[in-house]
């Protein structure tokens, strides 16, 4: 499949793939590597606290990502306050040598939904500190606009709670977000299967970020491949001008010219 026309720009970098993969949850590094390759992704997230960056650790996650040639997007998973998230972002910048950060500030541990107030505060600080900030946010269009206003490079609304696999629970709000900001919109969290990813793209998202749906699938490689095509299918469909929904049928073959038998 050609990337012609499918490329998108994020933080001044052009990506051929609109699928962003999280690295958590894989049964083995081998399974993760195969899934990353099958997905065609060029950008993967990883949590600073999941990785020991001490030198001499052969065969680890960082070696694997290096081998796959993907760009790293450190995240601030596990942070509950702006202060904590800002600190982790700085540590990640030191550890991984990138000023990109997927900003997560969690509001409560049962839903793992973002805390909008803390998120906005952290985003503002990190933008001022020179980071390319990609915030994991809720499906609230107003908050999304405020995040874009303070200089975030994208907004990443949740389709549903992290790891729930419930899909896109409020499609209308995702559409509203798409219309209320000028930065890329990346659907982040909640994807369960390929049709969820396709729907997100049809709603106008620029990309999809997912982890568990692939890493915890019974066959992660097959699901990674499915997601790759789903994202591409959704993007093409979004631009293809779908037909209106009708109440009654409309025959696709006209009656005119039918032989009178």
């Amino acid at each position: 499949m050609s990337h012609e026309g499918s490329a998108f720009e994020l933080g001044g970098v052009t990506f051929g793939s609109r699928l962003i993969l999280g690295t958590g949850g894989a049964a083995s590094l081998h399974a993760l590597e195969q899934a990353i390759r099958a997905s065609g992704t060029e950008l993967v997230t990883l949590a600073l606290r999941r990785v020991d960056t001490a030198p001499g650790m052969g065969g680890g996650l960082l070696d694997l990502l290096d081998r796959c040639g993907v760009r790293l997007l450190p995240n601030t998973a596990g942070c509950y306050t702006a202060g904590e998230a800002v600190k982790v972002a700085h540590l990640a910048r030191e550890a991984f040598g990138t000023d990109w950060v997927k900003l997560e500030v969690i509001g409560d541990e049962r839903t793992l939904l973002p805390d909008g107030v803390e998120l906005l505060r952290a985003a503002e600080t990190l933008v001022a500190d020179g980071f390319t900030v990609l915030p994991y946010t809720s499906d609230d269009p107003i908050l999304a606009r405020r995040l874009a206003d303070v200089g975030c490079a994208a907004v990443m609304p949740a389709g549903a709670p992290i790891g729930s696999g419930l899909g896109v629970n409020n499609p209308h709000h995702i559409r509203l977000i798409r219309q209320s900001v000028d930065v890329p919109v990346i659907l982040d969290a909640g994807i369960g299967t390929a049709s969820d990813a396709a729907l997100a793209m049809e709603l106008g998202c620029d990309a999809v970020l997912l982890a568990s749906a692939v890493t915890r699938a019974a066959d992660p490689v097959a699901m990674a491949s499915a997601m790759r095509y789903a994202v591409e299918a959704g993007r093409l469909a979004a631009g293809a001008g779908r037909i209106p929904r009708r109440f009654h049928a409309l025959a696709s073959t006209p009656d005119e010219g039918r032989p009178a038998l």
Partner: protein
Amino acid sequence: MLAGAEVPVRADGLGRDPSYAESVNRGPFLADVAVVGGGAVGLAVAWRCAARGLRVTVHDPDPGSGASHVAAGMLSPVAEAYFGERELTGLLVASAARWPAFAAELTAASGVDLGYRTEGTLVVGLTGDDLAEAQRLWSYQRDLGLPISPLRPSELRDREPALATRVRGGAVAPGDHQVDPRRLVTALRTAAERAGATLVTGAVRALSDLDAGVTVVAAGCGAAALTGLPVRPVKGQILRLRAPDGGPPGFRHVVRGYADGESVYLVPREDGEVVVGATVEERADTDVTAGAVLRLLRAAVDLVPELAEYELVEATAGLRPGTPDNAPIIGPLPGRPGVLVATGHHRHGIVLTPVTADLVTDLIVTGPTARTTADPLLAPCTPERFAGQRRPG
């Protein structure tokens, strides 16, 4: 397949002469077999080799202090069977099948009670979400033909009344047994020494320092530096509780499952100990963290409430030797004649101890040149599969 045909073992006559033991004994080396690493795997190899008449030395600065010391000792090929790991599951099943005879033989050879228990394992889910996770996995295991059967919640509590009434359901894997890894190490050490093996207390910095016909690298995470193979530390934090008043725990099965999304296992010993494990972290430190202890204890007490009254005896962290595909590395080290590897056992070191010891001993005795007779169990374990990921060792 075992691709070690071009790797000759240095000990004279190994693999060619049926009277190998006599041949090697005339060799120029101090020992026929030097084992690097005195954990369960290394000591078992030493015991098996010594019992077959080979002169064996085991090198370890502190035998039994590595992953074997923290391991829980679940012999759980069924409940550990996971998507995409069928070959590894085959190896786990094969090794678990050897455990009863292995345990009996080792107990006889050492006089040490291993704490081997055969009540089986219960897999449970606390909430609906937890049960769905557990069911998904045991459905897969049943599809593989492995022995695990769903139970109604009432049947579950009939078997283990100590389970919380909130537990939504579960299954029993009757063939998933357990052993006490610390007793195992003591027994293996005793048996190996009784069979004539010598323990050398000291670290091995380079394989070239050893003077032996065959060197077996069973050094866990230490194998990476010695061989260049991609063995990485995977940190696990684990707790040990003790039942009050010196009695046995109030449950007899190994209990494993999910509690509010946390994965946990509980291993009850007859001497009153209950092991609660374990985290799986891509880290190389051995710090015990408050958060991990909290999560493990919360999940444990959620599943078996009486554990709240137990004494917290130990909170430790150890490093599992992990490989990229979670399967161990067993076989001749490419490009290093006379060196065999037995490491990378990750979460499965204790259950895989018998099969690893047998396979390695057979390779030493029969020789790696016997390509056609190589045990098919070795196929998923070859060091060659990581040829592209090896660092200068």
